[in-house]
């Protein structure tokens, strides 16, 4: 299937860009929305970090992610035949139209969860960017190339912290182990291939995420062991995010994030 023919005008009257299943836009959203929601979660922490230095570091990652989001959404806006801005895409979709994985919407329960969520995502994110840089879509390729540097740093930061917490004190070990156990069931969804993603792979613009799975679990497990943590054995995993079916947290994230745009429709800020 050629994706270049998919830039047809949306027949859907709702604001989200839905160029039909298999659309390039939909594929980009599967990637970009992760950065949006994770950036939003990290943004909540600004001013509340465990130390000033760590606070600054978390905000830096949030800024990197929002930077990526803007590149993706600006590209989507450009692909769209309707008049759209990056903000329409960020703020004016219904919950079902956000395609982020469930992992990134999990709350900032404590620093252990923040770091584990970050690490679980970063390892995948870097692998994804490393493949996406070979996309036939030049814009996606360029975004990925820039993203690789940012995400490499994120992974280094979060990985170092998993080790510190895992092999730190008894308390930190327990806390981070709990976070690992609780967030583990959200990791498998990262590799789910939706119809959209499959089509994108076929068109040479997308990444075969399912093929990253083995390397991902190998890398993550090694680091967890180095951090003296147990690798969960759970075989039960959650999914739904890539289809827009989210956890209960998502509604709150969106009501916060969309508050201004929803309360004051159509205004410039």
């Amino acid at each position, binding site marked *: 299937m050629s994706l270049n023919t998919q830039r047809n005008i949306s027949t859907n009257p709702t604001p989200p860009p839905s160029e039909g299943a298999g659309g390039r836009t939909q594929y980009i959203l599967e990637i970009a929305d992760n950065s949006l929601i994770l950036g939003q979660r990290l943004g909540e922490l600004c001013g509340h970090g465990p130390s000033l230095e760590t606070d600054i570091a978390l905000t830096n990652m949030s800024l990197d992610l929002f930077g990526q989001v803007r590149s993706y959404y600006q590209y989507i806006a450009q692909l769209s035949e309707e008049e759209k801005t990056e903000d329409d895409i*960020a703020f004016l979709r219904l919950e079902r139209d956000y395609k982020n994985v469930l992992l990134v919407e999990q709350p900032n329960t404590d620093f252990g969860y923040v770091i584990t969520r970050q690490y679980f995502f970063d390892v995948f994110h870097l692998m994804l960017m490393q493949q996406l840089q070979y996309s036939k879509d030049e814009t996606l390729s360029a975004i990925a190339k820039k993203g690789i540097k940012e995400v490499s740093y994120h992974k280094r930061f979060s990985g170092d912290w998993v080790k*510190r917490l895992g092999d730190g*004190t008894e308390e930190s070990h327990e806390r981070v182990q709990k976070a690992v156990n609780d967030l583990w069931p959200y990791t498998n969804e990262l590799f789910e291939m939706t119809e959209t993603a499959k089509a994108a792979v076929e068109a040479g613009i997308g990444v075969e995420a399912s093929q990253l799975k083995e390397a991902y679990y190998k890398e993550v497990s090694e680091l967890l062991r180095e951090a003296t943590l147990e690798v969960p054995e759970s075989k039960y995993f959650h999914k739904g995010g890539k289809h827009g079916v989210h956890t209960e947290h998502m509604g709150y994230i969106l009501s916060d994030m969309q508050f201004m745009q929803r309360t004051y429709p159509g205004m410039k*800020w």
Partner: protein
Amino acid sequence: MTKHKLKTKNKFPKAPLLGRGVGVRIMSEKEIKNLQQIFEAKIARDEKIEPKDWMPEKYRQTHIRQISQHAHSEIVGMLPEGNWITRAPSLRRKVALLAKIQDEAGHGLYLYSACETLGVSRDELYEQLHTGKAKYSSIFNYPTLTWADMGAIGWLVDGAAIINQVPLCNTSFGPYARAMVRVCKEESFHQRQGYEIMLTLCNGTPEQKEMAQDALNRWWWPSLMMLGPTDDESVHTAQSMKWKLKRKTNDELRQQFIDQTVPQADILGITIPDADLKWNEAEGKYDFGTINWDEFWQVVKGHGPCNKERMSARVNAWNNGEWVRDAAMAYAEKQEAKKVEKAS
């Protein structure tokens, strides 16, 4: 390179007479007077005082108080704006706001570091903040109720702060002056960011303009108060002038702030909430109404609208972060031990 952060904490006793880092030496009164004269002369010549230089105890204490107060203001000041990160109305505004608040964390950090050169640890300074012993700028005890408050804070609060801060780049204590140079350089975008938000609102719908006016109404007077009590009430002015901790009096700074801000409000097309505000042709400045100092002191003493929220946010962040900080230390020690083991 200046070697100024070199204190070991215990070598900085409260007594001013002790040699720093070379043990204890008893000085005669004459010697002290002599040192004092050299010290005052240095400042008068615009030379910097560095941490290991002899300084009167009062100088040290005053600097710890002012620099830490400044640092506390930066980090408490992150909170009212932090409220709006998740609700920022566009991605562009969101990243600008995040970057701005992150800068404030950085500025807090530079200032705490400057303070630490005086022999007090950041943890002690936090302790003073958390127990209410140390103050921070009272303006951060006001709530941020609408998006326009992000504009008003950048425009007015950062505007007032800049007026205070620019002269401090030349203050007598080296580490403070250097921190302020960095702060001022980085802060140049903050006020513009705020003003741009206000301008967008004022050029927007009537609803948006009303939001801007409402924000100005609520932030105007606290911003004036932010420049400190009037000169006749200000206890530290004379000494601070001598040490170049202050270059102008509070009232002079306030006047400067008003004179530069009124035309900016005119461009926005919103009204400063002061019926007595009018141009005084003869004196070339604006006359303005009476500031409600009762309100100021009430907020300073802890009874402002958000004092409790701000403090509990800080205390929670610190307490909830303790296990994280401990873990990092424990890990570092284990790694160090492994290294030693390997080497032996």
